[in-house]
């Protein structure tokens, strides 16, 4: 028990602000690329391969685990090309904006009672706000490349991202109504301690009561990540990668990292909002042990959500631009508005 108390003491100890900040910075600086690596390896490389009865990377490291590291190191050695006609500053800054958007989401995602970078009162609102920054980055990339495919891709991407930003925001609203807070930590505890129509056996993971919200959220996330069936903006077979077309080397990899980092972040967001986050309904939420178990629980849930996202990705063809806009405006948004009203009615009536 001494070991455990030591750990709990360590975790409970008042760490000076600067030290904790540095730790948090370090952790997130590791988490984002690692998240991108894990998702890239597990899903993009392995799951996709298995779905196609093949193996995926095998040679770089055992079972190809080092493949993406090799990719990263290789991209470091690639020449950095600015096309003649490109707007150099904007071209160079666009990946940064996308990456900033990704990094900032991680600030509020909790992985344990204390394992969170910053517990903001407006948590989920903040996360949605910063995730919308990437639109600017994508438009910058599309415009600055001075390339037709890039511009078309950028415009399409922006059009799609904003169209699906709304269902994303509105789908969250149901959860917020149920939990009565924007703070992600409180949403987690609301789920762990909640009840479904008076039955509290498993708490109240909002996926059960907010299934429509979860569905809309998932579809919107799929679109926000520009993954099939919503990958028109980066459609290889027509506009050859869209806004990324002129990017080389590490600059391209930043987009890649941004995409997968965001996928991980959205997966985490989905598990916090709908799957109960790091908590289990049977534990004492304040227990220090959750600071260790929480991240593991989160990882499992995130992987589950990502598996779903990537499963869709590898199965479906892409929707045409008009079809996906129609889906957003004529189906998802009205549905989520109805969902808000219905949830509100239930909240007030019950």
């Amino acid at each position: 028990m001494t070991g455990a108390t030591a750990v709990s003491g360590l975790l409970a100890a008042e760490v000076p602000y600067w030290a904790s900040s540095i730790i948090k910075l370090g952790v997130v600086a590791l988490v984002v690329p690692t998240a991108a690596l894990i998702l890239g390896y597990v899903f993009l490389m392995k799951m996709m391969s298995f779905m196609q009865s093949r193996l995926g990377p095998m040679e770089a490291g055992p079972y190809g685990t080092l493949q993406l590291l090799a990719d990263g190191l290789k991209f470091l050695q690639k020449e950095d090309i600015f096309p003649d006609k490109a707007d150099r500053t904007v071209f160079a800054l666009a990946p940064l904006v996308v990456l900033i958007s990704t990094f900032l989401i991680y600030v509020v995602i909790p992985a344990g009672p204390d394992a969170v970078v910053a517990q903001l009162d407006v948590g989920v609102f903040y996360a949605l706000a910063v995730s919308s920054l990437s639109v600017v980055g994508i438009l910058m990339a599309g415009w600055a490349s001075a390339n037709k495919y890039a511009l078309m891709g950028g415009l399409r991407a922006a059009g799609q991202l904003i169209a699906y930003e709304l269902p994303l925001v509105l789908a969250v609203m149901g959860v917020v109504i149920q939990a009565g807070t924007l703070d992600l930590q409180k949403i987690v505890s609301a789920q762990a301690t909640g009840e479904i129509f008076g039955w509290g056996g498993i708490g109240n993971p909002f996926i059960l009561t907010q299934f429509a919200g979860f569905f809309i959220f998932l579809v919107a996330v799929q679109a926000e990540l520009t993954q099939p069936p919503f990958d028109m903006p980066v459609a290889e077979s027509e506009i050859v990668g869209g806004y990324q077309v002129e990017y080389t080397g590490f600059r391209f990899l930043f987009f890649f990292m941004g995409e997968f980092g965001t996928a991980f972040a959205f997966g985490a967001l989905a598990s916090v909002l709908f799957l109960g986050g790091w908590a289990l309904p049977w534990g004492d939420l304040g227990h220090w042990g959750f600071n260790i178990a929480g991240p593991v629980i989160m990882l499992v849930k995130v992987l589950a959500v990502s598996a779903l996202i990537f499963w869709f990705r590898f199965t479906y063809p892409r929707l045409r631009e008009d079809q996906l806009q129609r889906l957003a405006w004529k189906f998802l948004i009205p549905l989520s508005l109805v969902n808000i009203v219905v949830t509100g009615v239930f909240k007030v009536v019950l």
Partner: protein
Amino acid sequence: MGLVASGKAPKPLTKLLNLSRKYSIWMYQWGLACCAIEMGAVIGSPRYDVMRLGVIPFPASPRQADLVVISGTVTDKMVPSILRLYEQMPDPKYVISMGSCANCGGPYWDSYSVTKGIDQIIPVDVYVPGCPPRPEALLEGIVLLQERIGNEDPAVRWKGGPIVVD
């Protein structure tokens, strides 16, 4: 600037860099003729699955590519495009010439519109024989290329030279 290009990079570092390039070869899908289908089989057929070797066929644009496989007949009309796309790839870049047509003109050696060998236009690192080479033959070419990349001297390559194996 240009630690590697100057040739002053320590040996373990260049070794590591070589390893990374060896196992991460993003391949630009450059389908030209019959060989393109066998190249497609190498990429697309689970039986061959070139991704195992770290050859990733993702990029649709030459800007992100490391390797281009000239697979098939190169016509005089196509030559400018090939040259341009090759030059649009960022260094370091590698070329595999796949099949008789790309090697030497192959069955069309006497045609009025076919270029007799891609090596007249761009430097080639590995020639894969066959008409079309079976997918394993291309795999063998890729393995050969990987071996050579693993042992090459980057300083030469960085200046646009051929693969120099230690």
